[in-house]
């Protein structure tokens, strides 16, 4: 998993509330064999028409937001199905941080497994950042994980809360596998001992 330390970039505004994982990545893309490659289908049904043509009005189709790294969204982002394909699609598009007033639980946890930082802030602060996002390339937002702050384009600093363990993992790029591999000597020892006691395994 890629580390997350600081990020300064363009944010795409998506003021809709209750954006669910079906909207983030519709079910027809679950037969894929990859975690990567889902970026083109991110928000597929909002982003393309029936013929597969881009809908120009959709935010990520606008020139200013094609390389957005941050999403600023409405309340309760990521609700619905638990599909890990949702964070996979965001990441593949290039989104590393989602800012909202609240997130659905499973999606929130899935983000950390995939190197994405979800930031929950009060409504007034999200409103400020939403305004920045609307300015496209002209207003960059900065996120600092170590200090747990988001800085708006005009320098207002907002602090956010985060579980220390999740922060540690994200800062160091540690996924569950990375953490378990820190215990690799215990696994080695277990295997050696099992080789003696249950050699047929």
């Amino acid at each position, binding site marked *: 998993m890629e580390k997350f330390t600081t990020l300064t970039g363009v944010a795409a505004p998506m003021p809709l509330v209750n954006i669910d994982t079906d909207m983030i990545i519709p079910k027809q893309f679950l037969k894929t064999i990859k975690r990567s490659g889902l970026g083109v289908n991110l928000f597929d049904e909002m982003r393309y028409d029936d013929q597969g043509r881009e809908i120009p009005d959709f935010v990520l189709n606008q020139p200013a937001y094609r390389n957005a790294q941050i999403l600023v969204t409405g309340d309760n982002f990521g609700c619905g199905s638990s599909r890990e394909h949702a964070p996979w699609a965001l990441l593949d598009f290039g989104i590393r941080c989602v800012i909202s007033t609240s997130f659905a639980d499973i999606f929130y946890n899935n983000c950390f497994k995939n190197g994405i930082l979800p930031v929950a802030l009060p409504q007034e602060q999200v409103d400020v950042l939403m305004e920045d996002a609307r300015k496209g390339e002209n207003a960059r937002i900065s996120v600092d994980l170590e200090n747990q702050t988001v800085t708006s384009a005009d320098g207002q600093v907002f602090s956010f809360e985060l579980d220390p363990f999740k922060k540690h993992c994200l800062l160091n790029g540690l996924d569950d596998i990375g953490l378990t591999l820190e215990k690799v000597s215990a696994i080695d020892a277990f295997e050696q001992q099992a080789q003696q006691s249950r050699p*047929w395994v």
Partner: protein
Amino acid sequence: MTAPKTLYDKIWDAHVVHEDTDGTCLLYIDRHLVHEVTSPQAFEGLRMTGRKVRAPQKTIAVPDHNVPTTEGRDNPDQMPEDSRIQVAALDTNAREFGVHYYPVNDIRQGIVHIVGPEQGWTLPGMTVVCGDSHTATHGAFGALAHGIGTSEVEHVLATQTLIQRKGKNMKVEITGQLPPGVTAKDITLTVIGRTGTAGGTGHVIEYCGEAIRALSMEGRMTVCNMAIEGGARAGLIAPDEKTFAYIQGRPHAPKGAQWEAALAWWKTLSSDEGAHWDKVITIAAEEIAPVVTWGTSPEDVLPITGDVPDPESFSGGKVEAARRALDYMGLKPGQKLSEIEIDTVFIGSCTNGRIEDLRAAAEILRGQKIKVKRAMVVPGSGLVRAQAEEEGLAQVFIDAGFEWRLAGCSMCLAMNPDQLAPGERCAATSNRNFEGRQGRGGRTHLMSPAMAAAAAITGRLTDVREMMREPA
């Protein structure tokens, strides 16, 4: 003296690599089974991080969910493109990472939960996982076996361990002897009907009692297979002489001195007298009848002699659920179950796709003709299929009017071309009757292979006991 332990406690304790102060454990995994649908992202994850499969010799891959079950299926044009890609990815991954692999044209190919035991991969006292909820099947051997998600598949591939917290112990005892015409499938459905689909949540179930002991290994696998439909992460049956006899001589079973050593340990694998159970359920085998499901949840179970229930007879949220189920199933309260007409019969799946299941169905079908529109038998593996052909069972099915298919999951989940049409009603030996499970709008009634065979002959849900031949 150590405290008395359950079988689950014993297997768990033997596999803890590390325990955190908060009770989170790192559990060692002895066997990892892999299929094409939930594994591609996991292998891709390994590739992106430059990791290897830690124990390829303990990892077994087989394509089953997507594969067509008609002849000539190794021609890729038989598969829709996305399915073909998933199968091809498994092929590439299995070869690149060097895991054991049974490709689609290998006679040993089949449903992952049938292949594992058949090849002797599944042994008592093991931990077994697979990115599939019906991994519970392997519990029939006294192995702790359960399903995992894609991130966990990658975790097991890379570390051969899983981060877990221990579940609770639940005992399901089936006393006495099953009446004629009643099978393992009727036991497992009856238990779910009794406990509900959330009855086992957070628990590992151990099935025990005289009626369980009397079951063959095939029957025990049928029982454990559906533990998950009762909400339990895993189902277990203590190993005994039948278990050992089934395993001995299988390709990957221990041999010689190792066999003796294994056997000595396996014989200690049963719950101690006085062990603690968080939940106990006891059912008398004599009270179990051949059952069918009437709704869209595996807990919607009734004896075939019953009537479609009135949704108002339930309570709470179930009233609305039952109403919706009857609407979806096209049934009316009070209708006799035995008068429900069937379009299609499906015999197969990891619940009932083993040789004994085919024997039970063929026994009923011998010399008969089907009255349903279509009927198919999908053996659980290439070897089951070969054996059924050798025993003459295939001919019985074909003569009766069944399609005789190649091995795979097939119409159990309809990810391949075998699907029900909207409104089509199916007597199925599989494990899930969810809306759309066997095809959009398809209606599924779950039952045993013998009951499915009986329905094929009469064209309606039928009490198999009416058709049973006198014992010779």
